[in-house]
């Protein structure tokens, strides 16, 4: 199914990507081509097939709820923040 520019804009908003007009046109074309290719999957009847969600027949991994030593200090955790103030990550206004 071809993807039009409006659909690209909707997906870009969901993905938090501010695309340029050129990118929108280019992605509409390229994604349509990729989606055309993956449509090949519709050739297969999978009505009776269960989805493979996890390759390991993994059980949930649990541990006791005990306090563990903290390997990193607050300073180390904050060190990569682009904007830090009063030991917190600072962001532009939300409301």
């Amino acid at each position, binding site marked *: 199914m071809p*993807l039009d520019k409006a*659909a*690209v804009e909707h*997906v*870009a*908003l*969901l*993905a*938090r*990507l*501010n*695309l*340029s007009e050129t*990118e929108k046109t280019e*992605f509409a074309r*390229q*994604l349509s*081509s*990729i*989606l055309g*290719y*993956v*449509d*090949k*999957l*519709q*050739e*297969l009847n*999978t009505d009776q*097939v*269960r*989805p*493979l*969600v*996890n*390759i*390991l027949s*993994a059980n949930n*991994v649990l*541990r006791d709820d005990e306090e563990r030593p903290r*390997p*990193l200090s607050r300073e*180390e*955790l904050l*060190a*990569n*923040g*682009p*904007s830090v103030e009063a030991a917190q*990550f600072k*962001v*532009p*206004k*939300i409301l």
Partner: protein
Amino acid sequence: MELWELTLQQMIGQLNSRCISSAELAESVYEHTEKTDKAVKAFITLADKDKIMEQARLCDTEAFRGIKGIPYGLKDIFCTRGLKTTCASHILDNFIPPYNATVVNKLNEQQGIILGKLNMDEFAMGSSTEQSAFFPTHNPWDLERVPGGSSGGSAAAVAAGEIPFSLGTDTGGSIRQPAAYCGVVGLKPTYGRVSRWGVIAFASSLDQVGVFSKTVTDCAIVMNIIAGHDPLDSTSVNIERPDYTRFLNADIKGLRIGVPKEYFQQGIQAGVKEEVKKALKFYESSGALVEEISLPHTEYALPAYYLVAPAEASANLARFDGVRYGWRNTGKDNILDMYSHTRAEGFGDEVKRRIMLGTYALSSGYYDAYYLKALKVRTLIYQDFMKAFENLDVIISPTTPSTAFKIGEQIGDPLTLYLNDILTVPVNMAGLPGISIPCGLSDGLPVGMQIIGKAFDEGTILKTAYAFEQNSGFHIKLPHPEVI
């Protein structure tokens, strides 16, 4: 012979018997790398020479153990404490992790020396290392060609003799394909065999950490260090790790090898087919039982992969939002604009393309038709392998449809580039282990042979690879002398 030319096994032997010192080895390796990497450009970050030499001299003051004093390289996707980790992306080009990945800790415990961080396609999305946000890496066999990807720097550095081994990651072929293009050994272990803690995630149901090396023996030595359960990675499996070096004997009489007919169709280069068929003749003449098999859903693996992997990537890469680490566009005064400008300017084209594709495949109204459908097809691919392995020990095929292509040749059309992974992707979809070993040359370029094994049976893969290597002697061949 220069010291940098030694294999890992030889370095261990000579350091252990004190024929050489760590300082002599580090000096040789560093000088060779500084010179060679001007042309190959495998490293994003090369550690400071004084620091490397200091570590090596310290190693010389104590008894040898493990891989003490031996330099190695890491794909720039592994978090390294205090050492910049970029994932070859602008969005992380100032990121200095406060901790090490588990595998890095394991190599540190054996006192290996990190020579540096290696180039890759941005966030491991690509098959040529041309998608690095910084620069392309060149194939040491022909500098005008790509080294493959996404772990292209890891493969090229080993091929050029810059390091005896390196680590990479493989989501759809990102270890095996560059190993094939660069003529080195590249192992993708079983999903769950090696810890991924501290490895920047791409597609979590597919990603696995693995090894590049000059020889199969060296691969087994490194696997002995990195494999095993990690309580910090809930997808790492808690079963015993065998001593992989114990599988290395060349007696393969009675080994049952399956050759999937589908892996020899689909536009495979004649020269590639020919070299792999020659290798199969060797196995037959050594007493292995080689039979043609069918993996009927092979052609559906790649389209299913290009839904599953981008879908998981779109979720994993949501964390890059300019808040806690990485680059931020500081010119925006509301948070939505800050997110969407930071991400649009921080990510490269291929990453954005896959985030868009994955977001679409997971979005309301399309989930069942795309993502769920792909997971169902994944079951069929898995079942193909399970059925085949009822009567087989290993499956052998070419690793890639062609030898290394030229830089720039495939960059225009994303779909054409994706087809490079057609023979490696099914293995990730089924979570199985696979190795690529060099099996010959076609027009002067290395051809890779892929050996696929049962889950957690890396041992039989290594044994099968070792038998061929001992016979072919290909592992001692070096790329073009002008390059190194």
